[in-house]
């Protein structure tokens, strides 16, 4: 493993930032500060952190409405992200996109997407762009288990394969597409099995193990950078909250949720750092304090930010 103590602490800090960010979002949603729908990635932080730690800042990324974690990890400023959620002019999209459309081309973030499966062909295009430029940039697209049944998604896999595009298809299989078990919607055991039909190598990874996720992603990234083409990664994960705020969750049992909650990486990972990697409890606590301070700043910035002015309405339609 080529992660040292400093890397691991950094990953933990990021994971915690995402968790705190999402918890703050839930609070803001409940008191009406955040509108529309909110799809927290609570419980799925490890996939964001493990995968993104294997990327460079200039790599491209598309993700979904559940992509706050990946966006932050790719480098989106949490202050701009929170301001966006509150609809403020200082938001990453000046308040025009909201929760499902975080975009920041400066860090390669080509957009969350509110249409299931739609980010995949866009990421393939970005990968092709890098390939045409002869730059060893890669592209990664995050999607849920539900996306594998979308036509555009299948088309994207095939295009990537025939173009040998430098892309990683990263499936966050959290067992449910909205309120429907994915097991009822496909006739295969693992979603990674789909990739073989497109001639794309695939691997299934424990989505609650940041280190395993990092290693699997790094292998795929290395392959893509060196001209080896696409890889499909399926991370078995779980959201510890509902699909969106207000989800009554009749489709899963309390026992199942409890089983996954017992493995919640937000607690398991720092414990593992202490047990296996010689990180001290003091270092963990310092990381936690740092995140709390950062979040206080994020919240203050967002709440203090001005609303966009009405003359913004007709701006940014055409370049």
């Amino acid at each position, binding site marked *: 493993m080529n992660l040292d103590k400093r890397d691991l602490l950094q990953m933990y800090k990021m994971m915690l930032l995402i968790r705190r960010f999402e918890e703050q979002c839930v609070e803001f949603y409940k008191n009406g500060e955040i509108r529309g729908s909110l799809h927290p990635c609570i419980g799925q932080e490890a996939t964001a952190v493990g995968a993104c730690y294997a990327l460079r800042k200039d790599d491209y990324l598309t993700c979904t409405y559940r992509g706050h974690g990946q966006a932050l990890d790719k480098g989106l400023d949490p202050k701009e992200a929170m301001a966006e959620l509150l609809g403020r002019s200082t938001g990453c*999209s000046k308040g025009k996109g909201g929760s499902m459309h975080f975009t920041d081309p400066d860090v390669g973030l080509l957009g969350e*997407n509110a249409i299931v499966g739609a980010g995949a*062909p866009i990421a393939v*295009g970005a990968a092709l*762009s890098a390939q045409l430029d002869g730059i060893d940039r890669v592209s990664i697209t995050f999607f849920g288990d539900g996306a594998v049944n979308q036509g555009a998604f299948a088309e994207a896999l095939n295009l990537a394969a*025939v173009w040998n595009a430098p892309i990683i298809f990263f499936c966050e299989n959290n067992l449910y597409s909205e309120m429907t078990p994915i097991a009822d919607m496909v006739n295969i055991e693992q979603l990674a099995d789909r990739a073989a039909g497109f001639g794309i190598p695939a691997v299934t990874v424990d989505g609650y193990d940041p280190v395993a996720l990092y290693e699997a992603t790094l292998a795929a990234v290395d392959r893509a950078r060196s001209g080896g083409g696409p890889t499909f990664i399926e991370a078995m994960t779980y959201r510890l909250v509902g699909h969106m705020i207000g989800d009554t969750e009749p489709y899963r049992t309390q026992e199942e949720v409890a089983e996954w909650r017992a493995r919640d990486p937000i607690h398991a990972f720092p414990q593992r750092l202490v047990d296996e990697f010689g990180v001290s409890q003091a270092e963990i606590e310092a990381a936690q304090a740092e995140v709390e301070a950062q979040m206080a700043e994020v919240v203050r910035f967002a709440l203090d930010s001005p609303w966009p002015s009405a003359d913004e309405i007709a701006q*940014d339609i055409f370049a």
Partner: protein
Amino acid sequence: MRELTYAQALREAITEEMDRNPNIILLGEDIGVYGGVFKVTEGLLARYGPERVRETPISEAGFVGAAVGLAMTGKHPMPELMFADFAWVAADQIFNQAAKMRYMSGGRVKVPMVIRTQQGGGRGNAAQHSQSLETIFTHIPGLKVVLPATPYDAKGLLKSAFREENPIVFVEHKLLYATRGPVPEEEYTIPLGQAEIKRAGDDVTLVSLSRTVLHALEAAEEMAQEGVSVEAIDLRCTVPMDLETILESVRKTNRLVVAHESHRRLGIGAEIAALVQEHAFDHLDAPIERVGAMDVPIPYSQPLESQVLPGVDHILEAIRRVIV
């Protein structure tokens, strides 16, 4: 001046722009060796190679989506939809992605791309290969929509489309490819959003677009024999739309007919009629007439299709109604 076909004029525009801008990438079905089913891209594979003239699987959503990704990362793709009818298959990528990406990002990204396609009936291609869809493209904010009627316009407008940093839907007409017209050797462009008065007149304003412009000019000629002077305006773009040229003409003629091959219901004619009564109500001496395809799927059989699609006779009838 030399004459070119509409297809040749388009090819010349693509070639000149590809020479000028190495970021232009063509994607589409059968566009390489075969040169596209209407031969517009003939010879381009040999000239630019398979990286820039990219044959795709039959995956409209996939390759239009890839074009969005290319566009967001510095390329200037030109995905080709063999028939406009296939836009529905790629609808999410056109309407939800390409059109909205810039806005949703608060202007952080650009999506420079030219979706080239062709539409229209008159060839017995039936309901899934004969639609005219400019109304649909026009309705969703975020796309510019161009519909050239002549070889000259086809070249000049396509060149301008490539100089835009926006998603453009460039809609050709399948029955125009073989038409010929003057195209100068010297380079020129035509700005998007400028209608053209193709024939000046005083008595009736006749606005049309795409292939219907040819019908309109024929109708204008016929009315001239009867002593009625028709001003025929070719809209050329529906987004941006040159309302000013229409209003100026209506203020002079006080009568307006709008003709297009897309369905009459909620068509561009309806939009123009609404805009003109908002802006020039006092100048109108007769109700505005709209000519468009009947609101039925386009039928196959020749006598049926020719009744459903607007022709010269339909336009003549409309003109006669506004001049009584």
